[in-house]
């Protein structure tokens, strides 16, 4: 087999950080090559070098045996490389077809006017080739996250590149859509394309990769055949130590019901939901994109208003029309959208932590913030959560994803917290931090907090939840106890197939 990509002694330094040092790896033509590593291991930097976003300080790249210099995005495309970046890089105000072919618009020679008909046909043809079903004329803004991901994939395929790099392509996909992605990857592989696949989800790597390269702290650790490895092996290579009881936690004993949801509706998202969560319990909520689970979280936290039903906290009917009222009732919410609505990127770690309870940290007579109290708060949470940062005035945007997530969690816990609602609590963070967050979750449950965890990560739901509630099209279709949980059963409820009807999939 020939080599599609060879990376020879690539080094890249950012001010103060060595992102990559002397990395060497090679990818065979026609294989699916996974790259794994914790956040900050250098995967994304390496991909951005291939994509022409960054230039290496030192080293060489060989594409199909030929040394190349990739100065910008168009060089990269010319080398036959297409990259699907982790952050969705779409233009929301443009249509699907415009997004896909933005640099290769078919146009009339004389006037430069774009030929809409041909653009539409080209997009359709591309979609048919990889079996994606979308309307080429819809605005990307109106699409769901998973549909946007599909557009991103189409965009990468539009150049007909021989090497396709996917950076966390499944972060926003439900399981049905992930299997769709798998079949796209199979199709591409059958057509001789080389795939470089970056993911935090080890299960996926075992599902589709041929070989895997592990990076740690900007250095190459190993490239191995996937068949010769177990999940534990990979985790050990990634973190340089074994993570004990990675997916297990102690399950606490439950107390009284803390939050009871009684025939709650919010048209048109969900109808007639009833369930309750006891103190010390972790209730997982599963469901495909668009099943109403995010809206449920928003209603509980007062970001959306219910249309019917009641919410009872400790048996008392409680009106939550605004996050302020939710906080007063002891309901805390950790968003999935850490970057956009979780952290205050320019503020310090300390400020991010204390902002919700800043009133309590003020001296009574003056209105000034009591820095000593604030420092004590930071200190206790740094210890409790094993937070890692350079100094307490460091801006949160410079922390790793895992540490950012811990800061957001710490903020929720710093206030009065009876009910903790988590939306995708470990999306986009690495295994080490994930294990720590699971540990924390266990500790919180032990302290008697009622946790509601909404997640697309089925292994996470199954290992961390005491019960899993499954939603489909705005209704509860199943409530599974610990001994009844398995991925297949959850998917059946989540896709509505337990009714026995021919339902074809999620938001796709």
């Amino acid at each position, binding site marked *: 087999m020939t080599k599609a990509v060879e990376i020879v002694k690539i080094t890249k330094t950012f001010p103060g950080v060595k992102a990559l040092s002397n990395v060497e790896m090679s990818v065979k033509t026609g294989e699916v090559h996974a790259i794994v590593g914790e956040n900050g291991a250098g995967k994304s930097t390496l991909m951005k070098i291939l994509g022409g976003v960054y230039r290496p300080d030192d080293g060489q790249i060989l594409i199909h045996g030929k040394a190349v210099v990739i100065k910008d995005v168009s060089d990269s495309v010319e080398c036959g490389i297409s*990259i699907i970046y982790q952050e969705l890089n779409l233009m*929301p105000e*443009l249509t699907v077809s415009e997004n896909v072919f*933005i640099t290769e*618009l078919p146009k009339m020679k004389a006037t430069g006017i774009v030929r809409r008909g041909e653009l539409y046909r080209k997009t359709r043809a591309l979609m048919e080739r990889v079996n994606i079903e979308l309307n080429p004329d819809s605005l990307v803004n109106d*699409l769901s996250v998973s549909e946007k991901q599909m557009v991103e994939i189409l965009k990468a395929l539009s150049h007909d590149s021989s090497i396709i790099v996917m950076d966390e392509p499944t972060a926003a996909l439900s399981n049905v859509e992930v299997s769709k992605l798998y079949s796209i990857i199979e199709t591409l592989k059958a057509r001789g394309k080389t795939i470089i696949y970056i993911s935090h989800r080890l299960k996926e790597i075992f599902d589709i990769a041929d070989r895997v390269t592990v990076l740690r702290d900007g250095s190459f650790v190993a490239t191995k055949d996937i068949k010769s490895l177990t999940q534990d092996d990979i985790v050990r290579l990634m973190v340089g130590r074994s993570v004990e009881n990675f997916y297990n936690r102690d399950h606490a004993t439950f107390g009284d019901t803390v939050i009871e949801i009684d025939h709650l509706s919010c048209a048109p998202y969900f109808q007639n939901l009833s369930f309750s969560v006891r103190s010390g319990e972790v209730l997982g909520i599963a469901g495909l994109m668009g099943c109403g689970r995010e809206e449920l979280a928003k209603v509980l936290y007062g970001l*959306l208003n219910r249309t019917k039903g009641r919410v009872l906290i400790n048996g008392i009917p409680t009106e939550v029309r605004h996050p302020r009222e939710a906080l007063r009732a002891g309901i805390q919410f950790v968003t999935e959208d850490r970057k956009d609505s979780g952290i205050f990127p320019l503020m310090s770690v300390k400020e991010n932590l204390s902002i919700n309870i800043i009133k309590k940290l003020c001296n009574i007579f003056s209105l000034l913030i009591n820095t000593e109290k604030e420092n004590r708060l930071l200190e206790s949470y740094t210890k409790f959560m094993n937070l890692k940062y350079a100094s307490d005035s460091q801006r949160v945007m410079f922390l790793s994803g895992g540490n950012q997530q811990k800061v957001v969690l710490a903020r929720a816990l710093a206030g009065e917290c009876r009910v903790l609602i988590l939306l995708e609590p470990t999306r986009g963070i690495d295994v080490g931090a994930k294990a720590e967050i699971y540990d924390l979750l266990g500790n919180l449950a032990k302290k008697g907090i009622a946790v509601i965890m909404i997640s697309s990560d089925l292994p996470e739901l199954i290992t961390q939840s005491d019960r899993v509630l499954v939603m489909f099209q705005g209704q509860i279709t199943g409530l599974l106890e610990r001994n009844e949980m398995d991925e297949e059963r959850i998917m059946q409820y989540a896709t509505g197939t337990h009714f026995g009807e021919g339902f074809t999939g999620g938001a796709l």
Partner: protein
Amino acid sequence: MRFWEKYGIYLIAITTLIIFTILTPNVLSLSNIVNLLVQTSMVAIAAAGMTFAITGGAFDLSIGSILAVTTSVLCKNVPILGIFGAIVLALSVGAVLGVMNGLIVTKLRIQTFVATLATQIIYRGGVLIYTQGRDSDLFRYLDIKVIAGGRVLGLPVPIWITFTVFLAGYMIYKHTQFGMWVRAIGSNEEAARISGIKVDRTIIVIFVITAVTTVISGTIYTSQLLTGNGRLGVGFELEAITATILGGTALAGGKGKFWGTLTAAIILALMKNGMNLLGVQDFYQRLATGLILLLALSMGVVSERIQTRGNRATRNQSGDTNE
């Protein structure tokens, strides 16, 4: 909400027209309508350029100064180069100033708002130096009056120019690669860069467009007034931006509304014109213009209402549940 965003501006236009027709029937006379459209043309043409800029996520605050440059260059050079030669010169100077704006924004990486705030002052200083602060006039070169006062097929030339500029602008915006790139950049600049769009070049061209449309406005202006000086056009950029925003172009970028801009420019001219006919003082006219803008903003005609995170998320997700 969608309805307001799409048609609200036209409803406001019709309402304004009805109100003024009731108050002073003269508004609807043919000669007044023609007169009104000629008055509209100056702001409208520059606003067409501004629509490109704001759609691409850029501001051009320097066009007021570029207007002064245009009047001065024309008045000083028509006697030397003739009308045609002077207009070509003015267009070239405008294009160069536009390129300078573009280079400052893209190469020095300064935000457009502050970059063009600085060049606004610089260009203003430049034109005052060029004219030595003195007026110049074209009272002996009345041929140039044909631009503002001439008629083709019974319609004044400025109306034809306005119409041509908007038609061309709309075609470029909607149906060419450049137009799509402008929308792409305004929509998500980082994504545009990663997609391989030539972001810097597109931004430079945007500033050339705002400058050149301003030169066209300035040429009509000069041909009307026959004078030029370095103090003209103060606040002109705000009029163009007002028309653009009132027309529904999103400040956040990515979404431009050409016909909205034109309609908004007409509304603004109509209010001025109607109140002039009613004998309302200029002070009250300004008050009314501000209130109309505020009204349009609050009714969601314009997409600048601040959306809270939660609302936006729900709006985005309404797409999936339709299925």
